[in-house]
């Protein structure tokens, strides 16, 4: 089962976790990314490419399900304005065994960073600044490009 959600609503962690667990799998791995309060960041805005975003996330989830024989893959990404401490992204996968769940979860968040059309803008001391991509993100995504 694949679940993709791109929404400006607060990410409901309990509901998403329950959905991932509902598959009855032995192993569940999750990743949650949140707005950090460091460096004086006030708010964070996330812009995206409606339609293309959901399609990109769907493709990633399908790739993960095929490669690791997952029972489920969930990707929830928030868009719009959010505050420090709020959740930006939730990735949850369930699989019969732990290594599949752990690897697929890392794959999804690494590839999401480079393959899905989201753009972050931070507000620092009243200034709005578009976040620059990090080279380390390309490196993290690239390690999944060879079959394991």
């Amino acid at each position, binding site marked *: 089962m694949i679940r993709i959600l791109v929404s400006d609503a607060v990410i409901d962690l309990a509901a998403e976790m329950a959905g991932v667990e509902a598959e009855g799998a032995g192993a569940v791995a999750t990743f949650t990314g949140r707005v950090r309060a460091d460096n004086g960041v006030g708010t964070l805005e996330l812009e*995206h*490419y409606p339609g*293309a975003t959901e399609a990109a996330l769907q493709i990633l989830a399908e790739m993960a399900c095929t490669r690791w024989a997952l029972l489920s893959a969930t990707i929830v990404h928030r868009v719009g304005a959010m505050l420090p401490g709020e959740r930006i992204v939730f990735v949850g996968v369930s699989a019969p065994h732990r290594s599949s769940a752990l690897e697929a979860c890392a794959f999804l968040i690494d590839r999401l*960073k480079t393959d899905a*059309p*989201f*753009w972050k803008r931070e507000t620092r001391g009243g200034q709005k600044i*578009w976040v620059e*991509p990090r080279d380390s993100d390309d490196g993290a995504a690239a390690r999944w490009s060879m079959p394991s």
Partner: protein
Amino acid sequence: MAIEMLYFAWVRESVGVGQERVDPPADVTSVSELIDWLGRSSAGHARAFEDRSRLRAAVDQVFVPLDALLGQAGEVAIFPPVTGG
């Protein structure tokens, strides 16, 4: 042939609009040529498209390199490298 252009993040801000309908001449056959042609339409376009290394594109919602051909494209998006997650 009319193309629906979409701009995101600072490309959108620099161009001044998030979306516009354009009708490039027949000799504009690639995304790169489309960007060249659009760059001449306003100072905002020119500024947005100045540094090609900072631009990414999608044709009909599929990510493509800038030298990709337009073919029968109905929608072309130009944007900075993505920063989600």
